[in-house]
């Protein structure tokens, strides 16, 4: 039996990372994720790992690049403006086929914005904010338990597909406390060995080179096709979502992370009121659970997408649903006092329920 604890989501991320064998943390202070480096600084010292409070977000993502190039599980965590600064390094990691975990406990923006729960970094995370055309794995926890579980999943997927992984959450999921069961980590038996990691040659005939520069005739095109195939493989195998009450649903409510938590309460209110409303929550944002949306809208032709932004994920929902399905959107841009209540979302459900597609 594993222990049951009452912890904050940010601490669950740190605990998940340690459980997954991450012994290298590099970061820079920024609200509302500062619990993560505080926890890691103490625990990693006890475990003989490495914690560095870097001089900048730019330095910390590049320290992560270096530790990851050596084949070790490593991470950084930050919040929106800090994640913007890391985009250069994320692009280089993607180009260099390096795994690694980047945790974004979002602030509201743009610019310095505020520290309220926000989902306005969906585009930056899912469509990627750096240059050159690449993909990163993106997971979106909606509970403290998922902050732990999806941190572990992100490390596994990142190693398997050799691409950086982003954990996208906000202060609502990061700072609320819930019960956490720390299931012991068992590494997947089929994770490939890191035969690309630099170790010093140590008798190997060939050098190992971790790089993203390809100037030879045809090299860079071939490299990009390789990265694309890996992303396609990820899309085919790793889509994850949570579905509830879809069987008889006449309206499907969707959202991710903290918006989904509120939306789920609104769906329960609707069911109690006799409305046939279902719930579909993407757990992986990349790969986006296209198949689940296509299946859910095979019969039910109405979808309501809820976000803590003016609408970002809704674009991917519209691309994924059946062609004759109608996707409505309700969102509020992040800021103090803008977090919708379950009652507010229930009113939106009532508004869209029964409306023709």
């Amino acid at each position: 039996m594993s222990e049951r604890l009452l912890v904050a989501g940010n601490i669950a991320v740190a605990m998940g990372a340690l459980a997954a064998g991450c012994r290298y943390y590099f970061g820079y202070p920024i609200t509302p994720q500062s619990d993560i480096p505080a926890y890691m600084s103490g625990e990693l010292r006890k475990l003989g790992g490495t914690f560095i409070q870097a001089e900048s977000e730019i330095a910390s993502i590049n320290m992560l690049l270096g530790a990851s190039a050596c084949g070790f599980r490593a991470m950084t965590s930050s919040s929106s403006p800090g994640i913007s600064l890391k985009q250069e390094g994320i692009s280089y990691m993607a180009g260099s086929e390096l795994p690694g975990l980047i945790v974004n406990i979002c602030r509201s923006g743009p610019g310095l914005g505020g520290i309220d729960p926000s989902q306005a970094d969906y585009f930056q995370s899912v469509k990627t904010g750096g240059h050159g055309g690449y993909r990163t794995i993106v997971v979106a926890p909606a509970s403290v338990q998922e902050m732990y579980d999806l941190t572990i999943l992100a490390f596994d997927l990142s190693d398997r597909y050799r691409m950086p992984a982003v954990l996208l959450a906000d202060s609502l999921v990061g700072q609320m406390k819930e019960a956490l069961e720390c299931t012991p980590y068992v590494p997947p038996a089929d994770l490939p060995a890191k035969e690309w990691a630099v170790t010093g040659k140590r008798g190997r005939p060939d050098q190992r080179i971790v790089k993203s520069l390809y100037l030879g005739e045809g090299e860079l095109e071939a490299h990009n096709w390789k990265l694309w195939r890996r992303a396609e493989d990820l899309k085919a195998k790793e889509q994850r979502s949570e579905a509830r009450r879809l069987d008889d649903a006449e309206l499907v409510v969707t959202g991710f992370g903290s918006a989904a938590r509120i939306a789920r309460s609104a769906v329960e209110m609707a069911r109690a009121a006799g409305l046939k409303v279902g719930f579909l929550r993407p757990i992986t944002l990349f790969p986006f659970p296209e198949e689940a949306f296509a299946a859910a809208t095979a019969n039910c032709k109405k979808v309501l997408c809820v976000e803590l932004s003016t609408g970002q994920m809704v674009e991917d929902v519209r691309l994924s649903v059946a062609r004759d399905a109608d996707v409505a959107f309700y969102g509020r841009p992040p800021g103090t006092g803008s977090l919708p209540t379950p009652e507010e979302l229930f009113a939106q459900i009532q508004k869209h329920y029964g409306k023709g597609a």
Partner: protein
Amino acid sequence: MKPVFARPVSLKDVATHFCPGCQHGLIHRLAADAMDHFGVQQQTIGVASVGCSVFLYEYFDIDVVEAPHGRAPAVATGVKRARPDDVVFTYQGDGDLAAIGTSEIIHAANRGELFTVLFVNNTTYGMTGGQMAPTSLPGQRTLTSPEGRDVAMDGYPMRMAEVIAALDGTAYSVRVAVNSPKNILAAGKAIKKAFEYQIEKKGFAFVEVLATCPTNWGMNPLAANERVASEMIPYFKLGTFKERG
């Protein structure tokens, strides 16, 4: 017969892409000599930077990680912390280290990271075609200072070996040149010492090497080499600025 001169095993038997009269090849050789001297080729990881020296892995027969522009000291920090028993070095030019990567080099030195930095100062951006560098001399004509560096507008050349020496985390900081046999011998010794500082875990070691860029200086190799003595060394004094332990 015992050979008295041979290619270091740490260096590959290939021709370089460097321009005629460029001194990167010579500095590569000195670094390879140091690796051979300590017998560490098999446990060395190089960190390449962005600029003419990005192709480090084409010439050194060692494992290499390529860093984004200016970030080599941060990447090397991650590498060295992950593999503390390996020998790690960065090889960076003046635009990379003293402009876009100023923050990374200062803080790596200040943390006393146990790796070696080889800093090649040729007072210009070589790869991009000869723009003004943070080390371009007052009055130096470049693509982006066509009437010469105007210190009132562009600021002053940065003396990085002295800047780095001022930090408590630095154990060894030195400036050398490779414009004469005497200076090449001294540079070789300094580079060896910088590796020794790392191997003996004495602390952060920094070697600034003054070098030519004949192509972007618009000079032939001999004239370029002469400029090192007549213009660079008077501003960038050779010497040891920190030697601890």
